[in-house]
């Protein structure tokens, strides 16, 4: 206990004298950054998940072709989950002698559990947001229903046998999907009216959606329970699987948040290691005196460990508080983009930030601190006695273990952890060795240089090992900053490419071949740019290598879902845009060979088929065969028409086909749509603009959040670079003062210092871009699945930024050699 009190007293005395400032700043940066990012990422993730849940209109959805037994309702009730239920089916509506196939959706009282509906009573203007479904006896319809059936608001509409009043125009529903039922114009009725319509009979084709929302833990319990009770025809929906365009964006953003955490921790770790190194070196004499006064080796370590423990507790508490304030600040900056209700900070994330702080301190500070144990008592008589450095295994082992654990904990991704660590380490070792060799080789150059260049270079060559470790520390910090910058800008660019401003936001289906020419002309007149037209034949996969498909596909698989319904089959001489061949070869564009099919790779995997397999399809009552000629990967998140099966051009000859296309229509030109729909009555238009807008909002939020994180990482990086330079100045200041006493003038010292630091910064900046490019390549290839492009501009900017930053920091740091009397400096430095 006494030792503890003594340690605290020593700590207090050290703190008072300013000895701990750099170390404390480094620690506070570390904890502040890790807490801020961990809290920010956690809150953003939960906010985004809630927002993403809106796309399902619930936290968890189970689809089923039949009603679920009452036990499901009871289980959900037990877990305090809110429940809603929708049923979707197709029905033909007949009014005013007009006939229309509509997608009917009956919704229960609490629908939607997440998100909201938008309705209007005055045709698009004055949209109102509501979270309540239609009242019993009322019906909400999409505008196309009114125009197609010549109806107006307030008119009655027969749905099956039930007469309902059209009370609102439905303009947005959160969980509108791109499937067949959603393609037809929507009619929304109250669940209590469903029975009276008498549309649903035994054997009717209905999709039920059982929706649940509640606390995360309860939902997880329910989800686990549900998985055990699902039958082959029922399925648990998931935003990542059912909305791939959104799921991909979210998972990439999450990975970036994870990467940012690691990056700031790495930056802070470098700062702590350097600051502790300096602290340790400045305490060799103190340790020697303590040893002389009878302190045992272990007591010395305990004295310092207690001090660091306390220092860590103090810095972690302060850092946690600052981190908390920091993430509040980030959310404040994002307030216009994020929903009004942002998830609360989780206590666990706060605690994690705190623990991370302690762990970083332990991993990076312990090895330099252990050197103090080895200081010989004889140093009181012989100052030149330096303790042996700690074992390299210990120094790097500690830091590496810690970084691996943190990376793994943040990314939950072994591949990414291995990529970052392995790639980084190998490049670092190679580069370190090359720099060491170059430094040694540079010695013969010295006599040929001018005095200030000679002195500057000598500063680097004096102790090449120290120089290499300093360069590597600066390099690590710069690498972290570059990675942060590069990945964030590539991520954002990828999203922008994925969703350009005029991305198609409407799909038109069921265009007959004879209508194509007039349809093209009409679009031109309306100033709408037409994309590619795809022929579509509705068909079903029935056999694989002459075996009925249902005997091959496993329950609940993608294959089962794909073969359970009609597929949109198309043919093309060219490989569709954004598709890539993963196996086999695309057919020759001039080829007239019949019976070849190209299949999407995930479906191929699920159906367990490979090149050369024979697939049998039915179209209406006819049957035909095709051989798998190649397998494609498809980008499902592009919001462009995509197909599971593409046939060689003449294979589908003779079957009735329609055309499908997509186009961009600005919101203000919506009336064009009404004119088109009127003229092409059989055509179905799928309006995805609302979904796209929602998706774009989420991407904008993520982009902004990522930008702020980047600024944060860069700020931390620059602060640490400055701190790291300062931590390495003692020896330089001492030698500078000594040189002044020997008659060196200020200009010479200033120039030689500038040269020395500029060289340090330049080499670090150059190394940093080499390592950062290697890491980016590895990250993109293995973890983020981006296409890698070299960042040419950074090859100039990085060495330049390194040179300027390190030169400025170094120059400011050693400036006192020039401005203060040398004797004063010599006396001060000799005391330490």
């Amino acid at each position: 206990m006494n030792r503890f009190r003594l340690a605290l007293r020593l700590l207090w005395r050290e703190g008072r004298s300013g000895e701990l400032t750099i170390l404390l700043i480094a620690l506070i940066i570390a904890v502040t950054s890790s807490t801020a990012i961990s809290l920010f990422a956690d809150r953003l993730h939960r906010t985004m998940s809630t927002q993403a849940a809106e796309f399902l209109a619930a936290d968890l959805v189970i689809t089923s072709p039949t009603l679920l037994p009452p036990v499901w309702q009871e289980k959900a009730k037990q877990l305090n989950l809110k429940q809603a239920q929708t049923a979707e089916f197709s029905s033909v509506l007949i009014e005013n002698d007009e006939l229309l196939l509509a997608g009917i959706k009956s919704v229960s009282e609490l629908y939607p559990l997440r998100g909201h509906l938008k309705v209007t009573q005055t045709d698009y203007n004055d949209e109102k947001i509501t979270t309540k479904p239609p009242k019993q006896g009322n019906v909400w319809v999409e505008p196309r229903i009114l125009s197609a059936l010549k109806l107006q608001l307030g008119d009655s509409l027969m749905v099956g046998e039930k007469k309902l009043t059209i009370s609102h125009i439905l303009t947005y529903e959160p969980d509108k999907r791109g499937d067949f039922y959603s393609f037809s114009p929507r009619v929304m009725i109250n669940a209590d009216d469903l029975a009276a319509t008498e549309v649903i009979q035994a054997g009717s084709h209905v999709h039920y959606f059982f929706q649940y929302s509640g606390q995360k833990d309860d939902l997880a319990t329910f989800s686990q329970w549900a998985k055990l009770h699902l039958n082959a025809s029922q399925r648990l929906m998931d935003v990542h699987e059912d909305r791939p365009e959104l799921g991909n964006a979210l998972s990439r953003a999450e990975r970036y948040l994870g990467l940012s955490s690691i990056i700031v921790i790495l930056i802070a770790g470098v700062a702590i290691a350097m600051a502790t190194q300096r602290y340790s070196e400045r305490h060799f004499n103190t340790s020697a005196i303590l040893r002389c006064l009878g302190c045992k080796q272990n007591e010395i370590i305990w004295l310092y460990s207690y001090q660091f423990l306390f220092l860590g507790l103090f810095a972690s508490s302060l850092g946690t508080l600052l981190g908390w304030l920091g993430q509040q600040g980030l959310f404040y900056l994002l307030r216009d983009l994020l929903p009004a209700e942002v998830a609360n900070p989780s206590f666990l994330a706060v605690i994690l930030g705190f623990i991370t702080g302690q762990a970083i301190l332990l991993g990076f500070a312990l090895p330099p601190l252990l050197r103090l144990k080895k200081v010989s008592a004889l140093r009181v008589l012989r100052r030149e006695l330096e303790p042996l450095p700690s074992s390299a295994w210990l120094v790097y082992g500690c830091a590496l273990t810690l970084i691996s654990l943190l990376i793994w904990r943040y990314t939950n991704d072994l591949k990414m952890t291995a990529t970052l660590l392995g790639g980084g380490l190998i490049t670092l070792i190679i580069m370190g060795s090359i720099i060491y060799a170059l430094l040694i080789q540079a010695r013969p150059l010295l006599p040929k240089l001018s005095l200030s260049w000679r002195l500057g270079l000598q500063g680097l060559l004096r102790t090449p090992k120290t120089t290499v470790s300093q360069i590597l520390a600066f390099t690590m910090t710069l690498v972290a900053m570059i990675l942060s910058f590069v990945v964030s800008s590539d991520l954002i660019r990828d999203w922008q490419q994925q969703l350009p401003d005029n991305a198609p936001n409407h799909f038109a289906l069921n265009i007959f071949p004879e209508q194509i020419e007039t349809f093209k002309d009409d679009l031109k007149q309306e100033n709408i740019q037409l994309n590619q037209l795809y022929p579509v034949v509705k068909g079903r996969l029935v056999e694989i290598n002459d075996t009925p498909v249902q005997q091959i596909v496993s329950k609940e698989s993608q294959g089962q879902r794909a073969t359970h319904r009609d597929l949109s089959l198309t043919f093309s001489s060219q490989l569709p845009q954004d598709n890539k061949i993963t196996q086999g070869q695309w057919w020759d564009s001039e080829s007239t060979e019949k019976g070849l099919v190209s299949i999407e790779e995930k479906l191929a995997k699920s159906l367990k088929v490979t090149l050369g397999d024979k697939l049998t399809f039915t179209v209406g009552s006819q049957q035909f065969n095709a051989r798998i000629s190649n397998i494609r990967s498809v980008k499902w998140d592009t919001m462009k028409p995509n197909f599971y099966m593409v046939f060689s051009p003449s294979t589908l000859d003779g079957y009735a086909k329609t055309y499908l296309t997509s186009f961009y229509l600005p919101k203000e030109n919506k009336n064009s749509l009404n004119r088109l729909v009127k003229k092409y009555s059989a055509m179905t238009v799928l309006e995805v603009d609302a979904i796209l807008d929602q998706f774009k909002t989420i991407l904008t939020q993520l982009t902004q959040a990522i930008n702020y994180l980047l600024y944060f990482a860069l700020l931390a990086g620059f602060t640490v670079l400055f701190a790291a330079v300062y931590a390495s100045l003692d020896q330089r200041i001492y030698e500078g003062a000594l040189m002044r006493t020997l008659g060196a003038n200020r200009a010479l010292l200033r120039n030689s210092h500038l040269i020395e630091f500029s060289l340090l910064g330049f080499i670090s900046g150059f190394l940093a871009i080499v390592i950062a490019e290697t890491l980016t390549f590895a990250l993109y290839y293995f973890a983020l699945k981006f296409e890698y492009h070299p960042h040419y501009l950074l090859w100039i900017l990085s060495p330049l930024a390194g040179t300027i930053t390190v030169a400025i920091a170094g120059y400011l740091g050693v400036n006192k050699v020039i401005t203060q009397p040398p004797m004063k400096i010599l006396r001060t430095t000799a005391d330490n």
Partner: protein
Amino acid sequence: MSQSQVNQTVETIIETENLGKTVFSSDAELNILSAVDLRIKSAESLAIVGASGSGKSTLLSLLAGLDTPSTGSIHLKGHDITQMDEDGRAAIRNQFVGFVFQSFQLLSNLSALENVMLPLELANDNNAEYSATLLLERVGLGERLSHTPKQLSGGEQQRVALARAFVTRPAILFADEPTGNLDSKTGSHIIDLLFELNQEQQTTLVLVTHDKALANRCQRMITLEAGKVI
């Protein structure tokens, strides 16, 4: 244990036998110290003199247990410190030994009072502040308690060092050129103080110096030349 053995242990505080120190460089071995047999009695003051490089400081560091000999043994207060590990020797230093150095060796971040308190705090003494204040007043620095070494002159720093050395009432005090960094007037004040405190506390004093006048104030003097007592 017979009465004569007890008397001898009480009488002799340090005893060395065939003490030697050899260092090896890449191409040769160098005998810094060889065959030193020395017996120092309790409360005795002994000066070790000799030219630079004669091995004075090496002998002092061996006697104080700061370094280990290549040959021979050292008994300090009856303990064979050559058989001990570094931690064992640290415990002996803590219990029996005080130091005064040529370069003062004060901790620059601590005040004068805190520097003097430190050895007491290490020994878990609850009256550290009181004892340290008393001794600093005794050496004439009662008004400078809160000053750090940087704010004190060389003579004042050495007085703090003296106070730190005597505050634990060590059985034996090792002084390595205590006036080496001071002008002759300040040096002589420090030496007066050193001998006064030595008298008051009946401490054994082992002093390394090349100042003949200072050496003459000690009860006994040994001279080293090329690592040997002559």
